[in-house]
């Protein structure tokens, strides 16, 4: 498996190499857990987006990682071209990028997926095509370079053993807030009820006045917006690059399969497990081992509990 730029960036790049030797086990574990938590939080956002789309529409969106990449690239454009101080620019990106990506996703749904009648196999092939189209579009209009986005603030929290990025902790809090909002939306609002009813039985939903086309476009847009929001949170830690969508896609799939396709609760638990174990194993051993274990875990789940840890039996 290729070395993960996402995980690498989350881990703080080369900076860790120096610290590792000087730190004793306890603080080192704490650092690993912190890094794992940041990873888990961002992963939960992308995976919930993927899971919602699959749950409601039965579409496996292979281009999900590219929507994430688009979010990061748009964040770069916004912060680069809007004459705002870093904090305001980043905040603007956090609003603009998810909205733009949601609009692009809704368009993808209406122009392509809907015309394929949401056939499970055809949509996989179509989203693979979209993956390359979006990637090439980014390469053409944004270029091959990785470009940084300045973090909205630069605080460091000084722990007794090491200093830690305040922004990374903010990322965790922000991801949790977004996930809470999604949960409230799904369980407490009319639109959420409409989405859940459509997920259960799209035909009967129509008999109660639900416009399934609109629900699908909205769900795909929401999935894209979540990926984009995750990217805007990550982009001050990692740089925006046209190939950055691969890893989040792979990890999101791992999380969604382990958690159970379409189960939001399972997705959250699995994101925490994968994020934390990835953070810890990568630090103590190697990132490659972490990916090997995650992949093994997926294989085990597929063999012994194909519906996922929390998924309903089909």
């Amino acid at each position, binding site marked *: 498996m290729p070395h993960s730029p996402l995980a690498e960036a989350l881990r703080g790049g080369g900076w860790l190499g120096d610290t590792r030797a000087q730190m004793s086990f306890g603080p080192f574990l704490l650092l690993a857990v912190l890094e794992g938590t940041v990873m888990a939080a961002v992963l939960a956002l992308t995976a919930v987006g993927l899971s919602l789309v699959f749950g409601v529409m039965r579409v496996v969106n292979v281009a999900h990682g590219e929507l994430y990449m688009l979010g990061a690239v748009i964040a770069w454009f916004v912060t680069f071209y809007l004459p705002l101080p870093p904090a305001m620019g980043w905040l603007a990106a956090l609003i603009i990028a998810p909205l733009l990506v949601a609009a692009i996703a809704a368009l993808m749904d209406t122009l392509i997926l809907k015309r394929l009648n949401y056939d499970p196999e055809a949509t996989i092939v179509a989203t693979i095509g979209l993956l390359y189209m979006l990637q090439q579009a980014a390469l053409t209009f944004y270029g091959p370079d990785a470009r940084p986005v300045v973090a909205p603030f630069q605080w460091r929290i000084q722990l007794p053993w090491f200093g830690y990025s305040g922004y990374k902790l903010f990322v965790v809090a922000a991801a949790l807030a977004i996930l809470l909002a999604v949960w409230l939306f799904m369980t407490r609002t009319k639109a959420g*009820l409409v989405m*859940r*009813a459509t997920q*259960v039985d799209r*035909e*009967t939903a*129509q008999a109660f006045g*639900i416009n399934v086309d609109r629900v699908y476009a909205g769900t795909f847009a929401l999935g894209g917006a979540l990926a984009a929001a995750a990217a805007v949170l990550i982009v001050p830690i990692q740089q925006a690059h046209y190939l950055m969508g691969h890893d989040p896609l792979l990890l999101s799939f791992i999380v969604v399969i382990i958690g159970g396709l379409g189960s939001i609760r399972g997705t959250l638990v699995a994101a925490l497990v994968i994020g934390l174990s990835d953070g810890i194993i990568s630090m103590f051993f190697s990132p490659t081992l972490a990916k090997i274990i995650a992949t093994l875990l997926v294989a085990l789940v597929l063999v012994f509990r194909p519906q996922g840890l929390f998924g309903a039996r089909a």
Partner: protein
Amino acid sequence: MLRVEGITAGYGPVTVLRDLSFQAQPGQVTCIMGRNGAGKSTLMRAIMGLVPVQSGQILLGDAALHTLPAHKVPLHGVAYVPQGRRLFGPLTVAENIDVGLLTRKKGLHRREFVLDLFPRLRERLDQVASTLSGGEQQMLAIARALCLEPQVLLLDEPSEGLQPSMISLIRETVLRLRETGLATLLVEQRVDTVLRIADKVAFMAHGRVEHVAERADLTADSTLFQQFVGV
């Protein structure tokens, strides 16, 4: 009045309904009988816009239902209780009722009405629908449909798999609703139920309504039942 005029409908290349016509009057229970596979459920789904109508028309008052996308049909006052109930299983009783109320601007009054009709549902508002008993599930399916305050109610074999006391409860509910001027279309296989509540019976075979009988002309030993239902 619901008028189905010469419709042909089916699934892809398979034609199930061929040149089928009949009418359902307000304040009447129109029963539909026919053997398994005769196309009774397909007819219901065609009225709901869930099966494309290739020719013919379905009219309700001024509205041409067959020209509408499926989600617009309930806006014209047509409510549907599908065969096998098709509740939103993982959702609670209250949420299933909320789905029924989606097309209504102010649903509170209607919600009280359906919960008064089935007090057992009121006791179980937070229970997940899939854990209800068969009878309770059928009550919920009917309650959910009645939330629309429909002019036309389509009931597809509501008594399937239920015990006698539950069947008579549903029968009484249908009769009470008839009083309110509702046009009810009831797919029903039991001759005794049909004889008790039908105003009119449409017998289906080969994808068409082959015969329509008035209630007054039917008795339990009518040859029509033997011919079309095989009892």
